[in-house]
C-alpha cells in the first residue's frame, strides 16, 4: 500500500470531479448548460476541462433558453440518458419551473412508471456576494413542494462529490443545489476521496455530537451551525449539529433520534423562512416528538424579504451565528 497526500480541494473542484467520474463510468451521462464548455468551462469554472476530455457532444453549451435546457434533459432522460443540466443561478428557475415541476417531477407518475426521468439539475445559489435580489436566492422549497423531485444540498467538498455522483445515477430527477460561496473559497476546502465516491441521498451526517440541543441544517449554513455549536460549547451548552445533505428524501430517522435524545431542536437554512423547508421540518418534529420536546422547535432562516443589495442589509437577511445561538437559547428558557 502506498500512502498518498490527502486530497484537499475546494467544492468547485470536487463537483467537477464528480461529473468527470460519472462521465467516465457511464457513456449515458452528459452535460448541458450555458457556457459550460471550453475555453471558459463555465462562468464559475465548475465544468473546466470536461468538454476537452469528453467532447462537445457530451458537454454541450446551450443558448440562453432554460426551458429548452430542462426540456431537452427531460426527453433525453426518458430515452435512457443521464443528463446533468445546469441552471447557472438558482433564481433563474422561475423561467423553467414548468419543465421541472410539471414534467421532470410528474412524468414517472403520469406514465404509471413506464417512463422515468433520471436527470440532475445543478444550480448555484446563495446570498452574501452582493448580487442583489435576483441572483441570490435559495429556492429549494419549490422542488420540495413538487412530489417527484429529489433535492440535495451539500455542505462540503466530499459530500458535494459523493452526493452528485449518487444523484447522477439516481433513478429520479434531482435538484442539486451548490452553495456558490463555497465553490472556490479555501476556507471551505476539504478532503475528497478519489474515484467513484458516493454519498447516498437520504443519509444525514452528524457533524457535531452533542446532547443538549439538535441543530438541523444543510448546505453552507452547516458551517454557521458548527460555529454556533462552538460558541455554545464555550457557554457549556452541548449542541448536536446534523447535516441533512439531502432534503428529499431526508433522514427523518436521524433527526428524530437526535431530538429524542436532546429534547430541543433548531432548524437552520438560508432560504426565506416563510414556507421554507424549515417549516416542514419543524412541523414534522413537533408531530413526532411533541411529548418529548422541552421547547418548541426554533426556525432560523433568511428574513421574509427580497434579498437586499447593500451589504449591511444583505448580511441582516442571512442567518448568522448569533441568530442560531439565540435560537438555541430560546429552546432553553
Amino acid at each position, binding site marked *: 500500500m502506498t500512502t498518498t497526500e490527502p486530497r484537499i480541494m475546494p467544492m468547485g473542484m470536487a463537483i467537477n470531479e464528480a461529473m468527470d467520474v460519472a462521465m467516465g463510468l457511464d457513456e449515458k451521462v452528459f452535460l448541458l448548460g450555458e457556457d459550460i464548455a471550453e475555453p471558459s468551462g463555465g462562468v464559475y469554472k465548475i465544468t473546466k476541462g470536461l468538454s476537452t476530455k469528453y467532447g462537445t457532444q457530451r458537454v454541450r453549451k446551450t443558448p440562453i433558453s432554460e426551458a429548452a435546457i430542462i426540456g431537452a434533459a427531460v*426527453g433525453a432522460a426518458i430515452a435512457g440518458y443521464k443528463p446533468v443540466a445546469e441552471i447557472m443561478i438558482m433564481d433563474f428557475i422561475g423561467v423553467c419551473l414548468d419543465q421541472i415541476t410539471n414534467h421532470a417531477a410528474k412524468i414517472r407518475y403520469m*406514465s*404509471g412508471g413506464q417512463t422515468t426521468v433520471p436527470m440532475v439539475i445543478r444550480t448555484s445559489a446563495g446570498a452574501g456576494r452582493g448580487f442583489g435580489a435576483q441572483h441570490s436566492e435559495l429556492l429549494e422549497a419549490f422542488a420540495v413542494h413538487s412530489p417527484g423531485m429529489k433535492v440535495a444540498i451539500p455542505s462540503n467538498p466530499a459530500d458535494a462529490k459523493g452526493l452528485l455522483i449518487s444523484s447522477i445515477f439516481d433513478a429520479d430527477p434531482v435538484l442539486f443545489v451548490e452553495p456558490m460561496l463555497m465553490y472556490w473559497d479555501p476556507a471551505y476546502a476539504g478532503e475528497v476521496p478519489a474515484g467513484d465516491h458516493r454519498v447516498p441521498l437520504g443519509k444525514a451526517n452528524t457533524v457535531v455530537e452533542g446532547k443538549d440541543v439538535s441543530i438541523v441544517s444543510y448546505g453552507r449554513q452547516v458551517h454557521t451551525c458548527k460555529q454556533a455549536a462552538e460558541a455554545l460549547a464555550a457557554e457549556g451548552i452541548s449542541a448536536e449539529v446534523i447535516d441533512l445533505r439531502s432534503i428529499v428524501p431526508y433522514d427523518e430517522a436521524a433527526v428524530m433520534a437526535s431530538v429524542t435524545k436532546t429534547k430541543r431542536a433548531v432548524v437552520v437554512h438560508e432560504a426565506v423562512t416563510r414556507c421554507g423547508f424549515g417549516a416542514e421540518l419543524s412541523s414534522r418534529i413537533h408531530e413526532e416528538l411533541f411529548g418529548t420536546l422541552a421547547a418548541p422547535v426554533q426556525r432560523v432562516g433568511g428574513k421574509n424579504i427580497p434579498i437586499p443589495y447593500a451589504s449591511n442589509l444583505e448580511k441582516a437577511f442571512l442567518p448568522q451565528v448569533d441568530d442560531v445561538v439565540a435560537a438555541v437559547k430560546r429552546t432553553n428558557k
Partner: protein
Amino acid sequence: MATTNRPDAPDRETLLRMFEIQQKIKTADERFRSMLTSGQVQLIYYSPRGQECISAGYAVHLRPDDYVVTIYRGLHDHIAKGVPMRELWAEFLGRGTGTCKGKGGPMHVTHPASGLMVTTGIVGAGIPIANGFGLAAQLSGTDQVTVVNFGDGAANIGAFHEGLNMAAVWKLPVVFVCQNNLYGEHTPMAMSTGVEYISERAASYGMPGVTVNGNDPVAMWKVAGEAVARARSGEGPTLIEARTYRFWGHLMGDAMEYMPKEERKAAMAADPLPAFRAWLIENGHANESQLAEIEDRIKALVDDAVDFATNSPEPPMDELYTDVYEEIIK
C-alpha cells in the same frame, strides 16, 4: 431538403394504412362523444375530429422506435402511433388496465412500447422535451426521428421559440408539426399571432418551414415524408404547419359561440375522411367492400376496447404512492 429519391405519392398499401388510421380515430372519437353525450362516461375530452389526416400523414413514415410527443388533444396522435386501443380506452376512463394504470389520463397518455413518449397538458411544453428525444437519438447515433405535435396557439409561447432555436442550432432529428386548427381555445389565431402562417417563423431559426393543407392526406404525407427523411438523414429539423379544423371546438361541451357557424358548417361539409374514402375508390386504390371491411374491423376493435375499458377496475388503492419515486417516499 432530403436527397433520397422519394416517391411523389403514397403507394396503395400506404394509402390504405392512412385510411385505416383515420378511420380508427374517427370511430374512437365518435364513440367517446356518444358515450359522453349519453352520460355513460364523464371525462374532459378534446376531440381531434377533423385533424386525422395530419397524424396519419406523418405516422406512416415512422418506425415503431421513432418517438412521438403530443398534447391533450392527442387521441389522433396516440392512435396513429399505434397505442393499443384497449389500453388507450382504459387510460381515458381511468382504469387500472390503462396504458398508465389510470394515473395519467387522456392528457398524459404514454406508451413507450409504441413510441408514444409524452402527452402533455401544458401548451408548448412538449417541444423542448421532443428535442431531448432527438438529442438522445443524435448522441446514440441511431437514426430515430421524433415528431412533436402542438397547436397554432402554442406557437406564441416561449417554449416554442426556445425549442425550435435549440433544435436548429443542434440540427436535431425532430419534426415540428403545428396542427393549425385556427383556434387556441376560444381565440382565433389572427387575434393572437403576429404572422399569417406559423411556418414563416421557421426562418427565425434557419429551419425549413412549410405550410400544408392538413386535410389533404396525400399532401400531408408528402410534406411529412420529406421532413422525416431530412431528420433521419441528419439534415436537421423542419417546421410543418398543417392547416386544419376542429369540428367540435376546444373540448366537449364547448358552446362554440366564438366559431362562425358558416365556417364550421363548411369545414364539416368538407370532412376530409369521407372525401379521402371516395378518392380511394375513384382512383381504384380500393373498392367499397374493401373499405367497408376495414371499417367493420375497426368498429369491432373499438367495441372490444370499450368493452375492455368499461369492464376494467379502477387502479388498486396501493397505486397511490407508487411511481412517485423509484422507492416509496411519503
